[in-house]
């Protein structure tokens, strides 16, 4: 008699089937995003434009305007969901998010500083520098005196929250000092906006590298989710793995934030919601988070640029408007 199916746990076959379905959904969302907008392009025309067999305005809109923005949206959503999934396991806190270590605050201070100085070209590099400065500060402070692994996550969390509060004060100061004409741009950046995302390649490459790096440690993460003492007894180098994966999460978040500003809720809601549906096997949860987060942000951004057209909303407004009720439902369900 064959063994009974192993439904609650992620077998390789089940994982592949779920990821395949999510990838198909992502492709559908991509085609949808490319066809919707001020100029409607039907599905066949989208394929011709992508295949390079069409020319003209429609094809140019699809290839040069919508495709880079759609790919950037997918990459940012995937990066944030991946970083959120990692931070939730590493801190063993299902409500951790990619910004929990103060990274978005550092990036925001860098980006807003560049805007204040009137150096539009420096916004992205300054955001990246701010994100890495914040990461270095948090990791540097949390490492001192962290002889034992159990201290590391608590100290990381506390240090991150404190550093984030400091960045928050600087952001408020800059918004206060900024001339009126610049405040709107700054707010868009803070809420998260893909209007200026024209080069998706760095974010896509970072997403691929970060996902592969995280997947290499997926089973270690499964063990770490059981607790640090259990993981250590099962041969996981707890402190080293935690720090390395925190660094991967920080890199993913930095790439997302420099592409689109600090888009909220994707990194918090997507992994949390998927965990309730799919279980906590990281070999499934991490890639599923990437595909779902990417798809959701792609849909949200399509909505953001069409729902109030010709006004373009920052995508962060949509993710927050959808994310808040979803999160509240998840929280009340989790309590029962």
């Amino acid at each position, binding site marked *: 008699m064959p063994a009974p199916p192993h439904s609650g746990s992620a077998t390789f076959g089940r994982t592949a089937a779920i990821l395949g379905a999510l990838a198909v959904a992502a492709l559908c969302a991509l085609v949808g995003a490319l066809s919707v907008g001020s100029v409607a392009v039907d599905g066949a025309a989208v394929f011709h434009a992508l295949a390079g067999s069409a020319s003209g305005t429609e094809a140019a809109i699809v290839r040069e305007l919508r495709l880079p923005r759609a790919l950037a949206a997918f990459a940012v959503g995937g990066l944030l969901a991946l970083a959120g999934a990692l931070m939730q396991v590493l801190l063993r806190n299902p409500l951790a998010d990619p910004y929990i270590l103060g990274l978005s605050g550092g990036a925001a201070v860098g980006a807003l500083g560049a805007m204040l100085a009137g150096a539009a070209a420096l916004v992205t590099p300054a955001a990246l520098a701010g994100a890495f400065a914040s990461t270095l500060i948090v990791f540097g402070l949390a490492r001192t005196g962290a002889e034992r692994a159990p201290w590391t996550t608590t100290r990381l969390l506390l240090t991150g929250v404190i550093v984030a509060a400091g960045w928050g004060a600087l952001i408020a100061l800059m918004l206060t000092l900024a001339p009126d004409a610049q405040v709107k741009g700054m707010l868009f950046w803070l809420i998260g906006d893909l209007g200026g995302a024209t080069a998706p390649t760095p974010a896509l490459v970072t997403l691929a590298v970060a996902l592969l790096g995280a997947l*290499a440690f997926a089973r270690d993460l499964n063990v770490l989710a059981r607790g640090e003492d259990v993981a250590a007894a099962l041969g996981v180098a707890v402190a080293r793995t935690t720090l390395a994966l925190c660094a991967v999460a920080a890199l993913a978040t930095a790439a997302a934030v420099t592409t689109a500003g600090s888009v909220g809720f994707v990194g918090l809601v997507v992994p949390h919601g998927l965990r309730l549906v799919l279980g906590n096997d990281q070999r499934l949860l991490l890639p599923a988070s990437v595909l779902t987060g990417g798809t959701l942000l792609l849909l949200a951004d399509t909505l953001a640029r069409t729902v109030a057209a010709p006004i373009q909303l920052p995508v962060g407004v949509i993710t927050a408007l959808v994310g808040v009720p979803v999160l509240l439902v998840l929280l009340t369900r989790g309590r029962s």
Partner: protein
Amino acid sequence: MTRDPPRLSCRGLALSVAGRTLVRGLDLDVRAGECWVVIGPNGAGKTTLLTALAGLRAAQAGAIAYDGTPLAALGLRERARRRGFLPQDSVDHFPATVLETALVGRHPHLARWQWESATDIERARAALSTFGLAGLDDRDARTLSGGERRRLALAALVAQDSGLLLLDEPSSHLDLGAQVAALDTVAALARDQDKAIVMVLHDLHLALRYADHAIALGHGRARTGIAGDILTGATLSELFGHRLVAVGDGATRTFLPS
């Protein structure tokens, strides 16, 4: 006839916490098939000793070896294949099914990109049924009772299939019947499968019933030997700072506070 090296040995082990010496110069040989118990008052360092023997905490001095190989020469994964460790308490932070939880024990046997095979799943299922958890594969482990969760942790440890088992209060959270059943299973691992076991127990009667050797830890020193020689009225009275009178003998010896 040459004898296999002990599953666990230590020489000159010294442990202290916050400047307080717990034990010094401890020599220990735990061989296959032996079941050792660690007893002592609260704060004597029983858990500290067990985590040090597991290689999860650095000792102030001394050397530990598994199967005659110094711990320093064994990688983390290789250590995990030779010794299993059951912490005193475990918290479930995330949902996981019973089978997934037991399969965690197979982690040190799998390569980085390898998935659990049918054999691994078989082993996990066998371990679950050993501890009376058969048929609960897909249950969320967080919906189990405290006693069932403790047995699940023991099953994961058995699925790990190490020759040496270090158990910190394996019978905690279990009612009297379940304590006896779980310790019967643990003792059978030593007797039938030649595992070497070191466990912390609070109940002196269970200690006497299941252990063949004992470590009495307290007041900065450790006494080691045959369980029946260590678990006596005189030794325990001194250890716990309260006079205990032994009644009866052998495995049915009982200790009454006077």
